[in-house]
Protein backbone atom coordinates (compact mmCIF):
# COMPACT_ATOMS: atom_id res chain seq x y z
CA UNK A 1 0.00 0.00 0.00
CA UNK A 2 2.75 2.41 0.92
CA UNK A 3 4.50 1.48 -2.33
CA UNK A 4 1.34 2.42 -4.19
CA UNK A 5 1.19 5.71 -2.34
CA UNK A 6 4.85 6.28 -3.26
CA UNK A 7 4.08 5.56 -6.88
CA UNK A 8 1.15 7.98 -6.73
CA UNK A 9 3.39 10.68 -5.24
CA UNK A 10 6.02 10.22 -7.94
CA UNK A 11 3.28 10.18 -10.56
CA UNK A 12 1.94 13.50 -9.28
CA UNK A 13 5.44 14.87 -9.01
CA UNK A 14 6.06 14.14 -12.70
CA UNK A 15 2.73 15.66 -13.65
CA UNK A 16 3.16 18.82 -11.57
CA UNK A 17 6.63 19.27 -13.03
CA UNK A 18 5.53 18.63 -16.61
CA UNK A 19 2.17 20.38 -16.71
CA UNK A 20 3.61 23.93 -16.95
CA UNK A 21 5.82 22.86 -19.84
CA UNK A 22 2.92 21.12 -21.54
CA UNK A 23 0.78 24.24 -21.20
CA UNK A 24 3.64 26.33 -22.59
CA UNK A 25 3.98 23.97 -25.56
CA UNK A 26 0.26 23.97 -26.21
CA UNK A 27 0.14 27.78 -26.11
CA UNK A 28 3.08 27.99 -28.55
CA UNK A 29 1.39 25.40 -30.78
CA UNK A 30 -1.93 27.27 -30.71
CA UNK A 31 -0.19 30.56 -31.50
CA UNK A 32 1.47 28.89 -34.49
CA UNK A 33 -1.97 27.89 -35.67
CA UNK A 34 -3.02 31.53 -35.68
CA UNK A 35 0.15 33.29 -36.66
CA UNK A 36 1.92 31.07 -39.16
CA UNK A 37 0.76 30.80 -42.72
CA UNK A 38 1.53 27.22 -43.66
CA UNK A 39 2.14 27.96 -47.30
CA UNK A 40 4.88 30.43 -46.44
CA UNK A 41 6.35 28.07 -43.89
CA UNK A 42 6.65 25.17 -46.31
CA UNK A 43 8.35 27.30 -48.93
CA UNK A 44 10.91 28.45 -46.39
CA UNK A 45 12.01 24.92 -45.49
CA UNK A 46 14.58 23.57 -47.95
CA UNK A 47 13.37 20.62 -49.99
CA UNK A 48 16.74 18.91 -49.73
CA UNK A 49 16.24 16.21 -47.07
CA UNK A 50 19.49 16.96 -45.26
CA UNK A 51 19.03 20.74 -45.17
CA UNK A 52 15.37 20.30 -44.31
CA UNK A 53 16.20 18.06 -41.37
CA UNK A 54 18.92 20.44 -40.24
CA UNK A 55 16.54 23.39 -40.34
CA UNK A 56 13.96 21.29 -38.50
CA UNK A 57 16.49 20.54 -35.78
CA UNK A 58 17.37 24.20 -35.39
CA UNK A 59 13.75 25.39 -35.29
CA UNK A 60 13.85 24.16 -31.71
CA UNK A 61 15.94 27.17 -30.85
CA UNK A 62 12.87 29.33 -31.38
CA UNK A 63 10.70 27.30 -29.03
CA UNK A 64 12.09 26.97 -25.53
CA UNK A 65 10.01 23.94 -24.66
CA UNK A 66 11.06 20.56 -23.38
CA UNK A 67 9.88 17.18 -24.58
CA UNK A 68 6.42 17.50 -23.12
CA UNK A 69 5.96 20.82 -24.90
CA UNK A 70 7.49 20.04 -28.25
CA UNK A 71 5.07 17.29 -29.22
CA UNK A 72 2.13 19.66 -29.71
CA UNK A 73 4.42 21.96 -31.68
CA UNK A 74 5.69 19.11 -33.89
CA UNK A 75 2.15 18.01 -34.51
CA UNK A 76 1.17 21.52 -35.46
CA UNK A 77 4.11 21.71 -37.87
CA UNK A 78 2.89 18.49 -39.51
CA UNK A 79 -0.61 19.90 -39.74
CA UNK A 80 0.89 22.94 -41.43
CA UNK A 81 2.30 20.62 -44.08
CA UNK A 82 5.89 20.37 -42.92
CA UNK A 83 7.32 17.04 -44.07
CA UNK A 84 7.54 14.24 -41.46
CA UNK A 85 11.36 14.13 -41.77
CA UNK A 86 11.63 17.76 -40.74
CA UNK A 87 9.07 17.32 -37.99
CA UNK A 88 10.93 14.29 -36.60
CA UNK A 89 14.20 16.23 -36.66
CA UNK A 90 12.46 19.00 -34.79
CA UNK A 91 10.87 16.58 -32.34
CA UNK A 92 14.21 14.99 -31.47
CA UNK A 93 16.33 18.13 -31.42
CA UNK A 94 14.01 20.70 -29.89
CA UNK A 95 14.25 19.45 -26.29
CA UNK A 96 18.03 19.86 -26.36
CA UNK A 97 18.74 22.53 -28.96
CA UNK A 98 16.99 25.35 -27.20
CA UNK A 99 18.28 28.26 -25.15
CA UNK A 100 16.78 27.19 -21.82
CA UNK A 101 18.25 23.69 -21.93
CA UNK A 102 21.68 24.79 -23.14
CA UNK A 103 21.70 27.36 -20.38
CA UNK A 104 20.76 24.85 -17.68
CA UNK A 105 23.35 22.37 -18.96
CA UNK A 106 25.91 25.13 -18.79
CA UNK A 107 24.92 25.94 -15.22
CA UNK A 108 25.34 22.32 -14.24
CA UNK A 109 28.44 21.39 -16.22
CA UNK A 110 30.13 24.76 -16.56
CA UNK A 111 33.47 23.30 -15.48
CA UNK A 112 33.28 20.63 -18.16
CA UNK A 113 32.33 22.65 -21.24
CA UNK A 114 32.96 19.62 -23.45
CA UNK A 115 29.80 18.00 -22.04
CA UNK A 116 27.71 21.04 -22.96
CA UNK A 117 29.26 21.33 -26.42
CA UNK A 118 29.05 17.65 -27.30
CA UNK A 119 25.53 17.41 -25.98
CA UNK A 120 24.47 20.04 -28.50
CA UNK A 121 26.56 18.65 -31.38
CA UNK A 122 25.56 15.02 -30.93
CA UNK A 123 21.88 15.81 -30.42
CA UNK A 124 21.86 17.98 -33.53
CA UNK A 125 23.65 15.30 -35.54
CA UNK A 126 21.37 12.48 -34.37
CA UNK A 127 18.21 14.49 -34.99
CA UNK A 128 19.38 15.49 -38.47
CA UNK A 129 20.39 11.95 -39.40
CA UNK A 130 17.07 10.51 -38.27
CA UNK A 131 15.23 13.34 -40.01
CA UNK A 132 17.05 12.41 -43.23
CA UNK A 133 16.30 8.72 -42.81
CA UNK A 134 12.59 9.33 -42.41
CA UNK A 135 12.42 11.80 -45.26
CA UNK A 136 13.21 8.86 -47.57
CA UNK A 137 9.80 7.39 -46.72
CA UNK A 138 7.49 9.44 -48.90
CA UNK A 139 4.37 7.56 -47.92
CA UNK A 140 3.23 9.40 -44.84
CA UNK A 141 0.54 6.81 -44.16
CA UNK A 142 3.29 4.46 -43.07
CA UNK A 143 4.58 6.97 -40.53
CA UNK A 144 1.72 8.91 -39.08
CA UNK A 145 -1.46 8.13 -37.25
CA UNK A 146 -4.13 7.61 -39.94
CA UNK A 147 -6.14 10.81 -39.50
CA UNK A 148 -3.00 12.93 -39.31
CA UNK A 149 -1.63 11.27 -42.46
CA UNK A 150 -4.88 11.85 -44.31
CA UNK A 151 -4.85 15.52 -43.50
CA UNK A 152 -1.19 15.82 -44.33
CA UNK A 153 -1.60 14.20 -47.74
CA UNK A 154 -4.44 16.44 -48.74
CA UNK A 155 -2.51 19.45 -47.55
CA UNK A 156 0.59 18.65 -49.55
CA UNK A 157 -0.86 17.09 -52.67
CA UNK A 158 -4.23 18.67 -53.06
CA UNK A 159 -3.44 22.34 -52.91
CA UNK A 160 -3.23 24.60 -55.92
CA UNK A 161 -4.22 22.05 -58.54
CA UNK A 162 -6.12 23.28 -61.55
CA UNK A 163 -9.03 21.04 -60.77
CA UNK A 164 -9.49 22.63 -57.42
CA UNK A 165 -9.43 26.12 -58.86
CA UNK A 166 -12.04 25.07 -61.30
CA UNK A 167 -14.19 23.60 -58.60
CA UNK A 168 -14.20 26.73 -56.56
CA UNK A 169 -16.11 28.55 -59.25
CA UNK A 170 -18.67 25.73 -59.61
CA UNK A 171 -21.59 25.65 -57.17
CA UNK A 172 -21.13 22.96 -54.54
CA UNK A 173 -24.19 21.03 -55.58
CA UNK A 174 -22.81 20.53 -59.06
CA UNK A 175 -19.49 19.12 -57.92
CA UNK A 176 -18.69 15.47 -57.58
CA UNK A 177 -17.01 13.99 -54.54
CA UNK A 178 -17.75 13.18 -50.92
CA UNK A 179 -19.59 15.81 -48.97
CA UNK A 180 -20.42 16.19 -45.35
CA UNK A 181 -23.40 18.04 -44.02
CA UNK A 182 -21.85 20.53 -41.63
CA UNK A 183 -23.45 21.85 -38.47
CA UNK A 184 -24.61 24.89 -40.39
CA UNK A 185 -26.63 22.68 -42.68
CA UNK A 186 -24.58 23.47 -45.80
CA UNK A 187 -22.59 20.72 -47.48
CA UNK A 188 -18.83 20.69 -47.17
CA UNK A 189 -16.41 18.80 -49.35
CA UNK A 190 -14.75 16.19 -47.20
CA UNK A 191 -11.23 16.81 -48.46
CA UNK A 192 -11.69 20.52 -47.95
CA UNK A 193 -12.46 19.94 -44.31
CA UNK A 194 -9.08 18.33 -44.00
CA UNK A 195 -7.16 21.19 -45.54
CA UNK A 196 -8.96 23.86 -43.64
CA UNK A 197 -7.00 25.16 -40.73
CA UNK A 198 -8.41 23.60 -37.58
CA UNK A 199 -10.74 26.52 -37.45
CA UNK A 200 -11.09 28.88 -40.39
CA UNK A 201 -8.84 31.37 -38.70
CA UNK A 202 -7.94 33.47 -41.70
CA UNK A 203 -11.47 34.70 -42.09
CA UNK A 204 -12.07 35.49 -38.45
CA UNK A 205 -12.03 38.70 -36.51
CA UNK A 206 -9.61 39.25 -33.64
CA UNK A 207 -12.04 38.20 -30.94
CA UNK A 208 -13.03 35.02 -32.69
CA UNK A 209 -9.37 34.35 -33.40
CA UNK A 210 -8.87 34.49 -29.67
CA UNK A 211 -11.75 32.11 -29.19
CA UNK A 212 -10.33 29.56 -31.58
CA UNK A 213 -6.93 29.98 -29.93
CA UNK A 214 -8.55 29.20 -26.61
CA UNK A 215 -10.46 26.25 -28.00
CA UNK A 216 -7.32 24.83 -29.48
CA UNK A 217 -5.43 25.25 -26.21
CA UNK A 218 -8.14 23.34 -24.36
CA UNK A 219 -8.38 20.68 -27.05
CA UNK A 220 -4.66 19.93 -27.13
CA UNK A 221 -4.27 20.24 -23.40
CA UNK A 222 -7.00 17.68 -22.93
CA UNK A 223 -5.65 15.23 -25.43
CA UNK A 224 -1.94 15.51 -24.62
CA UNK A 225 -2.73 15.76 -20.91
CA UNK A 226 -4.33 12.34 -21.21
CA UNK A 227 -1.17 11.00 -22.85
CA UNK A 228 1.03 12.61 -20.25
CA UNK A 229 -0.97 10.96 -17.50
CA UNK A 230 -0.53 7.51 -19.01
CA UNK A 231 3.20 8.08 -19.64
CA UNK A 232 3.81 9.43 -16.14
CA UNK A 233 1.89 6.55 -14.60
CA UNK A 234 4.12 4.02 -16.35
CA UNK A 235 7.28 5.94 -15.42
CA UNK A 236 6.19 6.15 -11.76
CA UNK A 237 5.36 2.46 -11.57
CA UNK A 238 8.74 1.51 -13.03
CA UNK A 239 10.47 3.91 -10.65
CA UNK A 240 8.88 2.29 -7.66
CA UNK A 241 8.96 -1.32 -8.71
CA UNK A 242 12.31 -1.46 -10.54
CA UNK A 243 15.02 -0.43 -8.07
CA UNK A 244 17.42 2.22 -9.36
CA UNK A 245 20.26 0.26 -7.88
CA UNK A 246 19.70 -2.52 -10.37
CA UNK A 247 20.25 -0.04 -13.18
CA UNK A 248 23.30 1.49 -11.51
CA UNK A 249 24.82 -1.87 -10.71
CA UNK A 250 24.92 -2.61 -14.42
CA UNK A 251 27.78 -0.18 -14.88
CA UNK A 252 31.13 -1.93 -14.81
CA UNK A 253 32.95 -0.55 -17.81
CA UNK A 254 32.59 2.07 -20.53
CA UNK A 255 30.00 0.17 -22.53
CA UNK A 256 27.82 -0.97 -19.67
CA UNK A 257 27.87 2.43 -17.97
CA UNK A 258 26.67 4.10 -21.17
CA UNK A 259 23.88 1.56 -21.47
CA UNK A 260 23.00 1.94 -17.79
CA UNK A 261 22.72 5.71 -18.07
CA UNK A 262 20.61 5.43 -21.21
CA UNK A 263 18.30 3.01 -19.44
CA UNK A 264 18.08 5.35 -16.49
CA UNK A 265 17.31 8.28 -18.79
CA UNK A 266 14.44 6.39 -20.35
CA UNK A 267 13.09 5.33 -16.96
CA UNK A 268 13.21 8.57 -15.00
CA UNK A 269 11.56 10.56 -17.81
CA UNK A 270 12.91 13.80 -16.49
CA UNK A 271 12.33 17.09 -18.32
CA UNK A 272 15.24 18.20 -20.48
CA UNK A 273 15.28 21.63 -18.89
CA UNK A 274 16.35 20.10 -15.61
CA UNK A 275 17.93 16.80 -16.52
CA UNK A 276 21.49 18.15 -16.38
CA UNK A 277 21.11 18.84 -12.66
CA UNK A 278 19.94 15.31 -12.24
CA UNK A 279 22.87 13.97 -14.27
CA UNK A 280 25.16 15.98 -12.03
CA UNK A 281 24.19 13.75 -9.15
CA UNK A 282 25.84 10.88 -11.02
CA UNK A 283 28.91 12.84 -12.05
CA UNK A 284 30.96 11.28 -9.27
CA UNK A 285 30.13 7.67 -10.12
CA UNK A 286 29.82 7.72 -13.88
CA UNK A 287 32.09 8.52 -16.79
CA UNK A 288 31.62 11.63 -18.89
CA UNK A 289 30.68 9.48 -21.86
CA UNK A 290 27.81 7.89 -20.00
CA UNK A 291 26.63 11.23 -18.62
CA UNK A 292 26.60 12.50 -22.18
CA UNK A 293 24.58 9.44 -23.20
CA UNK A 294 22.07 10.32 -20.47
CA UNK A 295 21.87 13.92 -21.62
CA UNK A 296 21.45 13.04 -25.29
CA UNK A 297 19.11 10.08 -24.96
CA UNK A 298 16.92 11.36 -22.12
CA UNK A 299 15.35 14.34 -23.85
CA UNK A 300 14.60 12.48 -27.07
CA UNK A 301 13.18 9.27 -25.74
CA UNK A 302 11.53 8.58 -22.48
CA UNK A 303 8.56 6.63 -21.31
CA UNK A 304 6.51 9.71 -20.59
CA UNK A 305 7.17 11.25 -24.01
CA UNK A 306 6.40 8.03 -25.86
CA UNK A 307 2.81 8.44 -24.74
CA UNK A 308 2.78 11.89 -26.27
CA UNK A 309 4.55 10.72 -29.45
CA UNK A 310 1.88 8.08 -29.93
CA UNK A 311 -0.45 10.94 -30.80
CA UNK A 312 1.61 11.58 -33.93
CA UNK A 313 3.30 8.40 -35.09
CA UNK A 314 2.36 4.81 -35.56
CA UNK A 315 3.70 2.57 -32.80
CA UNK A 316 6.08 0.81 -35.19
CA UNK A 317 7.63 4.13 -36.18
CA UNK A 318 8.11 5.10 -32.54
CA UNK A 319 10.00 1.84 -32.01
CA UNK A 320 12.17 2.58 -35.08
CA UNK A 321 12.93 6.10 -33.86
CA UNK A 322 13.63 4.76 -30.41
CA UNK A 323 16.05 2.13 -31.71
CA UNK A 324 17.90 4.41 -34.09
CA UNK A 325 18.30 7.13 -31.46
CA UNK A 326 19.56 4.54 -28.99
CA UNK A 327 22.11 3.16 -31.42
CA UNK A 328 23.35 6.56 -32.54
CA UNK A 329 23.57 7.80 -28.96
CA UNK A 330 25.51 4.73 -27.99
CA UNK A 331 27.87 4.99 -30.95
CA UNK A 332 28.57 8.68 -30.55
CA UNK A 333 29.17 8.57 -26.81
CA UNK A 334 31.22 5.39 -27.14
CA UNK A 335 33.51 7.07 -29.65
CA UNK A 336 33.63 10.13 -27.42
CA UNK A 337 34.67 7.99 -24.44
CA UNK A 338 37.60 6.56 -26.33
CA UNK A 339 38.76 9.75 -27.95
CA UNK A 340 38.59 12.00 -24.91
Amino acid at each position, binding site marked *: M*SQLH*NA*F*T*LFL*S*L*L*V*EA*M*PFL*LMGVVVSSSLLLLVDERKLITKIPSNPFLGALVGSCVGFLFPVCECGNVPVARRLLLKGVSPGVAIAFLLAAPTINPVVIWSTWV*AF*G*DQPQIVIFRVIFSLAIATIIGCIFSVQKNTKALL*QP*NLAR*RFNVLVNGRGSKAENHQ*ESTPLLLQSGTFLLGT*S*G*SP*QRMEALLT*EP*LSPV*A*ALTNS*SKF*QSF*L*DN*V*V*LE*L*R*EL*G*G*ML*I*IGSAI*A*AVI*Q*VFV*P*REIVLSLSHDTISSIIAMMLLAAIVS*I*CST*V*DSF*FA*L*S*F*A*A*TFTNGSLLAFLIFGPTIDIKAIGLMASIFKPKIIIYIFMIVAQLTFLSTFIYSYLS
Partner: protein
Amino acid sequence: MINEQLPTRKKNRTSSVIKLKPKKHNWSFWFDNLVLISWGCLLLKYAVTGEYKLLIHPNYFWLMAVTSISLLLISGVRTVLFFRSFNYVPDNSQHLTLFPAKFSRTLLLGVAIAGLIISPNVLTSKTALQRGVTENLPLTHSQPESFVTGTKPEDRSIIDWVRTLNAYPEPDAYQGQPAKVTGFVLHLPELPENYFLISRFIVTCCAVDAYPIGIPVQLQGDSSIYPSDIWLEITGTMATVNLPSKNHQNQRKLVLVPTAIKQIPTPKDPYFKSDQ
Protein backbone atom coordinates in the same frame (compact mmCIF):
# COMPACT_ATOMS: atom_id res chain seq x y z
CA MET B 1 -14.71 28.08 -49.49
CA ILE B 2 -14.34 29.38 -46.00
CA ASN B 3 -15.57 32.81 -46.93
CA GLU B 4 -18.49 31.35 -48.73
CA GLN B 5 -19.65 29.54 -45.71
CA LEU B 6 -19.43 32.15 -43.06
CA PRO B 7 -22.55 34.08 -43.98
CA THR B 8 -24.50 30.85 -44.08
CA ARG B 9 -23.34 29.89 -40.64
CA LYS B 10 -24.24 33.27 -39.25
CA LYS B 11 -27.66 33.28 -40.80
CA ASN B 12 -28.48 29.85 -39.60
CA ARG B 13 -27.28 30.43 -36.11
CA THR B 14 -30.07 32.91 -35.45
CA SER B 15 -32.67 30.44 -36.48
CA SER B 16 -32.38 26.71 -36.22
CA VAL B 17 -28.87 26.02 -35.02
CA ILE B 18 -29.11 27.71 -31.68
CA LYS B 19 -32.33 25.99 -30.86
CA LEU B 20 -30.90 22.72 -31.92
CA LYS B 21 -27.59 23.29 -30.20
CA PRO B 22 -27.21 19.80 -28.88
CA LYS B 23 -27.14 19.23 -25.18
CA LYS B 24 -24.09 17.08 -25.60
CA HIS B 25 -22.18 20.05 -26.90
CA ASN B 26 -22.81 22.06 -23.75
CA TRP B 27 -22.05 19.05 -21.70
CA SER B 28 -18.60 18.61 -23.20
CA PHE B 29 -17.93 22.34 -22.86
CA TRP B 30 -18.64 22.19 -19.14
CA PHE B 31 -16.75 18.95 -18.73
CA ASP B 32 -13.66 20.60 -20.26
CA ASN B 33 -14.11 23.55 -17.94
CA LEU B 34 -14.39 21.21 -15.00
CA VAL B 35 -11.12 19.56 -16.02
CA LEU B 36 -9.40 22.95 -16.25
CA ILE B 37 -10.79 24.08 -12.90
CA SER B 38 -9.89 20.82 -11.16
CA TRP B 39 -6.29 21.01 -12.36
CA GLY B 40 -6.08 24.70 -11.51
CA CYS B 41 -7.37 23.90 -8.02
CA LEU B 42 -5.03 20.96 -7.59
CA LEU B 43 -1.95 23.05 -8.38
CA LEU B 44 -3.33 25.90 -6.29
CA LYS B 45 -3.81 23.52 -3.38
CA TYR B 46 -0.18 22.42 -3.62
CA ALA B 47 0.91 26.05 -3.76
CA VAL B 48 -1.18 27.13 -0.77
CA THR B 49 -0.60 24.14 1.51
CA GLY B 50 3.10 23.95 0.68
CA GLU B 51 2.67 20.33 -0.38
CA TYR B 52 4.49 21.20 -3.60
CA LYS B 53 7.66 20.86 -1.54
CA LEU B 54 7.04 17.12 -1.49
CA LEU B 55 6.75 17.02 -5.26
CA ILE B 56 9.01 19.52 -6.94
CA HIS B 57 12.06 21.68 -6.34
CA PRO B 58 10.87 25.06 -5.00
CA ASN B 59 12.57 26.77 -7.96
CA TYR B 60 9.65 25.56 -10.05
CA PHE B 61 7.07 26.92 -7.64
CA TRP B 62 6.32 29.97 -9.77
CA LEU B 63 5.95 27.82 -12.88
CA MET B 64 3.38 25.73 -11.07
CA ALA B 65 1.61 28.78 -9.64
CA VAL B 66 1.43 30.51 -13.03
CA THR B 67 0.08 27.31 -14.60
CA SER B 68 -2.55 27.02 -11.91
CA ILE B 69 -3.70 30.60 -12.42
CA SER B 70 -3.57 30.22 -16.22
CA LEU B 71 -5.78 27.14 -16.12
CA LEU B 72 -8.32 28.88 -13.90
CA LEU B 73 -8.19 31.98 -16.12
CA ILE B 74 -8.71 29.95 -19.28
CA SER B 75 -11.78 28.30 -17.79
CA GLY B 76 -13.03 31.69 -16.57
CA VAL B 77 -12.58 33.38 -19.95
CA ARG B 78 -14.25 30.45 -21.71
CA THR B 79 -17.22 30.72 -19.39
CA VAL B 80 -17.53 34.47 -19.91
CA LEU B 81 -17.31 34.02 -23.68
CA PHE B 82 -19.86 31.25 -23.52
CA PHE B 83 -22.43 33.42 -21.80
CA ARG B 84 -21.61 36.75 -23.40
CA SER B 85 -21.16 35.89 -26.97
CA PHE B 86 -24.24 34.65 -28.68
CA ASN B 87 -22.19 33.38 -31.56
CA TYR B 88 -19.71 31.47 -29.51
CA VAL B 89 -19.78 27.82 -30.26
CA PRO B 90 -16.84 26.02 -28.70
CA ASP B 91 -14.84 24.25 -31.33
CA ASN B 92 -15.12 20.73 -30.15
CA SER B 93 -14.57 18.88 -33.35
CA GLN B 94 -12.50 15.83 -32.67
CA HIS B 95 -9.56 16.09 -34.99
CA LEU B 96 -6.57 13.84 -34.57
CA THR B 97 -7.56 12.24 -31.36
CA LEU B 98 -5.92 9.03 -30.36
CA PHE B 99 -8.20 8.65 -27.39
CA PRO B 100 -11.82 9.60 -27.41
CA ALA B 101 -12.23 13.03 -25.84
CA LYS B 102 -14.40 11.53 -23.12
CA PHE B 103 -11.59 9.21 -22.08
CA SER B 104 -9.01 12.01 -21.80
CA ARG B 105 -11.42 14.19 -19.89
CA THR B 106 -12.32 11.46 -17.46
CA LEU B 107 -8.66 10.56 -16.96
CA LEU B 108 -7.61 14.17 -16.33
CA LEU B 109 -10.53 14.85 -14.02
CA GLY B 110 -10.03 11.58 -12.17
CA VAL B 111 -6.35 12.24 -11.52
CA ALA B 112 -7.03 15.81 -10.40
CA ILE B 113 -9.72 14.66 -7.97
CA ALA B 114 -7.49 11.87 -6.66
CA GLY B 115 -4.74 14.46 -6.18
CA LEU B 116 -7.11 16.74 -4.30
CA ILE B 117 -8.14 13.92 -1.98
CA ILE B 118 -4.89 12.00 -1.50
CA SER B 119 -1.97 14.07 -0.26
CA PRO B 120 1.50 13.21 -1.52
CA ASN B 121 3.60 11.28 0.97
CA VAL B 122 7.13 11.91 2.14
CA LEU B 123 9.67 9.58 0.55
CA THR B 124 10.70 6.91 3.00
CA SER B 125 13.66 4.71 3.79
CA LYS B 126 12.26 2.09 1.45
CA THR B 127 12.69 4.45 -1.47
CA ALA B 128 16.11 5.45 -0.15
CA LEU B 129 17.28 1.84 -0.10
CA GLN B 130 15.84 1.29 -3.52
CA ARG B 131 17.63 4.29 -4.96
CA GLY B 132 20.91 3.65 -3.20
CA VAL B 133 22.43 6.02 -0.67
CA THR B 134 25.02 8.30 -2.22
CA GLU B 135 28.11 8.90 -0.21
CA ASN B 136 29.91 10.98 -2.77
CA LEU B 137 27.82 14.02 -3.31
CA PRO B 138 28.69 16.02 -6.38
CA LEU B 139 29.14 19.68 -5.62
CA THR B 140 26.86 22.05 -7.40
CA HIS B 141 28.26 25.26 -8.68
CA SER B 142 25.83 27.47 -6.90
CA GLN B 143 27.48 26.47 -3.70
CA PRO B 144 29.99 28.88 -2.20
CA GLU B 145 33.61 27.84 -2.28
CA SER B 146 34.36 29.11 1.21
CA PHE B 147 31.93 26.60 2.51
CA VAL B 148 34.17 24.44 4.65
CA THR B 149 35.53 27.19 6.83
CA GLY B 150 32.43 29.37 6.66
CA THR B 151 30.07 27.22 8.70
CA LYS B 152 30.38 26.30 12.33
CA PRO B 153 30.40 22.49 12.68
CA GLU B 154 27.30 22.41 14.89
CA ASP B 155 25.36 24.49 12.35
CA ARG B 156 26.04 22.08 9.51
CA SER B 157 23.14 20.07 8.20
CA ILE B 158 23.56 16.56 6.81
CA ILE B 159 24.03 17.94 3.30
CA ASP B 160 26.65 20.39 4.62
CA TRP B 161 28.55 17.56 6.27
CA VAL B 162 28.48 15.42 3.16
CA ARG B 163 29.59 18.39 1.06
CA THR B 164 32.35 19.25 3.46
CA LEU B 165 33.56 15.67 3.34
CA ASN B 166 33.46 15.80 -0.44
CA ALA B 167 35.41 19.00 -0.56
CA TYR B 168 38.06 17.67 1.80
CA PRO B 169 37.68 13.92 2.01
CA GLU B 170 39.78 13.25 5.10
CA PRO B 171 37.49 11.98 7.88
CA ASP B 172 40.15 12.43 10.58
CA ALA B 173 40.15 16.18 9.98
CA TYR B 174 36.67 16.44 11.49
CA GLN B 175 37.18 14.15 14.46
CA GLY B 176 35.87 15.60 17.70
CA GLN B 177 33.87 18.36 16.03
CA PRO B 178 30.45 19.04 17.54
CA ALA B 179 27.43 18.30 15.36
CA LYS B 180 23.68 18.73 15.41
CA VAL B 181 21.68 17.30 12.54
CA THR B 182 18.09 16.32 11.75
CA GLY B 183 16.98 13.57 9.43
CA PHE B 184 15.15 10.30 9.22
CA VAL B 185 16.37 6.90 10.35
CA LEU B 186 17.59 4.56 7.64
CA HIS B 187 18.85 1.06 8.41
CA LEU B 188 21.47 0.01 5.89
CA PRO B 189 21.98 -3.74 5.70
CA GLU B 190 25.76 -3.43 5.39
CA LEU B 191 26.15 -1.44 8.62
CA PRO B 192 26.83 -3.19 11.96
CA GLU B 193 23.92 -3.60 14.39
CA ASN B 194 24.75 -0.60 16.53
CA TYR B 195 24.62 1.80 13.57
CA PHE B 196 21.94 3.51 11.55
CA LEU B 197 22.12 6.21 8.95
CA ILE B 198 20.64 9.62 9.70
CA SER B 199 19.57 10.72 6.24
CA ARG B 200 17.76 13.18 4.06
CA PHE B 201 16.69 13.28 0.43
CA ILE B 202 18.10 15.83 -2.00
CA VAL B 203 15.80 17.09 -4.72
CA THR B 204 17.17 18.51 -7.96
CA CYS B 205 14.01 18.75 -9.96
CA CYS B 206 11.17 16.74 -8.53
CA ALA B 207 10.53 13.84 -6.16
CA VAL B 208 11.30 11.46 -9.02
CA ASP B 209 14.98 12.30 -8.96
CA ALA B 210 15.36 12.72 -5.19
CA TYR B 211 18.36 10.80 -3.90
CA PRO B 212 19.27 10.06 -0.30
CA ILE B 213 22.44 11.05 1.55
CA GLY B 214 23.33 10.29 5.15
CA ILE B 215 25.82 10.07 7.99
CA PRO B 216 26.27 6.86 10.03
CA VAL B 217 25.27 7.22 13.68
CA GLN B 218 27.08 5.06 16.24
CA LEU B 219 25.02 3.85 19.21
CA GLN B 220 25.99 1.98 22.35
CA GLY B 221 23.34 -0.68 21.92
CA ASP B 222 21.19 -2.10 19.17
CA SER B 223 20.08 0.50 16.64
CA SER B 224 16.77 -1.24 16.05
CA ILE B 225 15.21 0.68 18.95
CA TYR B 226 14.94 3.51 16.43
CA PRO B 227 12.54 2.29 13.77
CA SER B 228 13.04 3.30 10.15
CA ASP B 229 11.58 6.58 8.96
CA ILE B 230 11.15 8.29 12.33
CA TRP B 231 12.64 11.77 12.35
CA LEU B 232 15.37 12.55 14.86
CA GLU B 233 17.37 15.53 15.98
CA ILE B 234 20.79 14.26 17.00
CA THR B 235 23.38 16.22 18.93
CA GLY B 236 26.83 14.73 19.35
CA THR B 237 30.42 14.73 18.22
CA MET B 238 32.09 13.41 15.11
CA ALA B 239 34.40 10.42 15.25
CA THR B 240 36.13 8.18 12.73
CA VAL B 241 35.81 4.42 12.56
CA ASN B 242 36.38 1.66 10.06
CA LEU B 243 33.04 0.64 8.67
CA PRO B 244 32.14 -2.00 6.12
CA SER B 245 30.85 -0.55 2.89
CA LYS B 246 28.71 -2.12 0.23
CA ASN B 247 31.57 -4.03 -1.35
CA HIS B 248 32.36 -5.49 2.09
CA GLN B 249 35.66 -3.70 2.44
CA ASN B 250 36.27 -1.66 5.52
CA GLN B 251 36.52 2.04 4.91
CA ARG B 252 37.52 4.81 7.25
CA LYS B 253 34.40 6.84 7.73
CA LEU B 254 33.17 9.81 9.67
CA VAL B 255 30.41 8.83 12.09
CA LEU B 256 28.27 10.74 14.52
CA VAL B 257 28.44 9.68 18.18
CA PRO B 258 25.29 11.06 19.77
CA THR B 259 25.06 12.69 23.17
CA ALA B 260 21.36 13.43 22.81
CA ILE B 261 18.70 12.02 20.50
CA LYS B 262 15.30 13.66 20.26
CA GLN B 263 12.39 12.46 18.16
CA ILE B 264 10.81 15.23 16.11
CA PRO B 265 7.75 15.34 13.86
CA THR B 266 8.31 14.98 10.11
CA PRO B 267 9.16 18.48 8.89
CA LYS B 268 6.89 20.16 6.35
CA ASP B 269 9.87 20.66 4.10
CA PRO B 270 11.68 17.34 4.46
CA TYR B 271 13.94 17.49 1.41
CA PHE B 272 17.17 19.31 0.82
CA LYS B 273 17.46 21.27 -2.38
CA SER B 274 20.38 20.52 -4.63
CA ASP B 275 21.39 24.17 -4.64
CA GLN B 276 20.71 24.79 -0.98
